[in-house]
């Protein structure tokens, strides 16, 4: 790696400036709001120190929502990365129709979130859903399974739908990373390691590790902060079974019009995501974050 003595402003500022414009002031504003009592009902915005945060942590939804969010992230992130890697490894092969399968994998990507939710409601609907119909036709079940109305199944169902929406991106990136591997490395590996599993572990995995770390971080962040698909599918129910912490930002701000508390939830989410990301990069060290 070569050294540049001065800060390479021409190279970096075009990327840094738009990001700074859209983060520094808005984040500072949100932080200010989270420390004040900003509601639609009462005029004036008195400084309340950490009251908003206290209100969130002691609220009746906090425990459930945090648990659900962590469980959702812990289920969805590895699933996306593992399934995505498997699909990418498989799609590298040429077989009859491989071109078509490679294109179909991208389908979930071209659907806006609201639409994915509608399609998956249709799959999981208890009475006229496709999944129950299929299971009934195969005589595996008699009645109907309440996919979206039983607490445990609802969370699993929304995880499946979320994984579905995120798979294409993982496949695209892993395929791109796989193709960057030197072909001589692979040929040498084919001679040294007979079992495909070992070959993956010792030769392919180290080469795509940096990309996998990027994907894990990105997916953990997405799973922990996005809520629209889940909310559109279950509305957070049944009960609080699929209520996510990130959804409370929206609910406090735009449903209760308590912007201070909404921003406080947001910064609690930020703190937890930061811990998650630090844990991931610690557990999966890669030279990506090294300064060398």
């Amino acid at each position, binding site marked *: *790696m070569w050294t540049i003595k001065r800060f390479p402003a021409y190279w970096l500022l*075009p990327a840094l400036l738009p990001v700074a414009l859209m983060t520094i002031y*808005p984040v500072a504003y949100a932080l200010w709001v989270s420390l004040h009592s900003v509601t639609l009902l009462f005029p004036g915005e008195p400084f309340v120190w950490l009251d908003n945060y206290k209100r969130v942590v002691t609220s009746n939804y906090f425990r459930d929502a945090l648990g659900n969010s962590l469980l959702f992230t812990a289920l969805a992130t590895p699933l996306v990365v593992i399934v995505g890697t498997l699909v990418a490894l498989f799609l590298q092969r040429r077989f009859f129709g491989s071109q078509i399968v490679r294109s179909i994998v991208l389908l979930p990507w071209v659907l806006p979130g609201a639409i994915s939710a509608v399609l998956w409601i249709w799959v999981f609907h208890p009475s006229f859903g496709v999944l129950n119909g299929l299971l009934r036709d195969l005589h595996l079940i008699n009645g109907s399974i309440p996919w979206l109305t039983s607490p445990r199944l609802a969370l699993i169902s929304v995880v499946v739908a979320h994984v579905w929406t995120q798979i294409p991106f993982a496949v695209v990136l892993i395929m791109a990373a796989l193709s960057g591997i030197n072909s001589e490395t692979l040929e040498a590996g084919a001679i040294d390691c007979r079992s495909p599993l070992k070959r993956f572990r010792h030769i392919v995995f180290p080469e795509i590790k940096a990309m996998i770390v990027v994907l894990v971080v990105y997916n953990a962040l997405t799973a922990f902060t996005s809520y629209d698909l889940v909310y559109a599918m279950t509305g957070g129910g049944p009960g609080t079974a699929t209520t996510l912490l990130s959804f409370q930002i929206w609910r406090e701000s735009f449903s209760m019009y308590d912007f201070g508390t909404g921003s406080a939830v947001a910064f609690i989410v930020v703190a937890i995501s930061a811990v998650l990301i630090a844990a991931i990069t610690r557990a999966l060290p890669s030279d990506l974050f090294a300064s060398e």
Partner: protein
Amino acid sequence: MRRNLNPFLTFLFATLIVLFAGGPVILSAVGSVVPDRIMMDASKGLFSEGLNFETYRYVFTGQLPDSYLAENANRAMISDAARQVPRSLLNSSVIALSSMVLNLLLGAPAAYVFARYVFPAKKLTFMFLILSPLVPAVALVTPIYMMIQALGLVGTQAGIILVHTAKALPFTVLILSVFFRKMPNEIFEAAALDHCSRFQAFWRIALPLALPSVGATGLFAFMLSYSEYMFSMVLSGDAATRPVSVVMAALARNTDVSWSLLNTGIFIAIVPTLVLVVFVWRFVVEGLLSGAVKG
């Protein structure tokens, strides 16, 4: 060197992938050509009345489907939002393509220096980029709206493009720098011997070699913008500037709308994007599999 998998297993995996990835979309394609009353009637076969393209006709020409003109039909099942789908596709293409081009133009040079050079404040700027997307977008809607308003860009596509570009840039830089770092050092040493400037090494060597990967990253930026909902909704104005995610959400949230009309909207919205994405992806895969990046 790739050994062949058992053909049966290959077929099985391929079928599973197609069913999982494409299943819900196939459902929507079927749903768009089958009228509601047949769909909800378990005793009738799905295609017992043949294919029905009335809802497609409605979206493109505004002529109401015959079944809704019958007496005591529920008028609420028709939504004007469906008619906005073709226009919104055009809006979304403009926004997403601009955001993609801006992302690559602004992000690639930064990714290149991050991947291949050590410079002052490298760690600081890199951490800033990586940590900037941490704050959930919902919490930033109000201040960003106020900023875009101060710039006079509310209700224009430029405002949405600006927000989407800034939203995708950190990830674009991160992904591209992974690709640039994977390139063999020897090429750049050779370039330095030939008195290539830093810009020439980037523009003439790194970028062409990484073109398929740059394409994959561009796809990411395109799709992030195309499917983004919240800022698109808040910042877009009337029907003429609304992108597809906003129109589709309006259609999907309206629980009265007929299934077949909704599915028609979904299908019309999918096809052009899918064609575009598959076209780019073809190019990316061809480049990747033919080994353009291999050292």
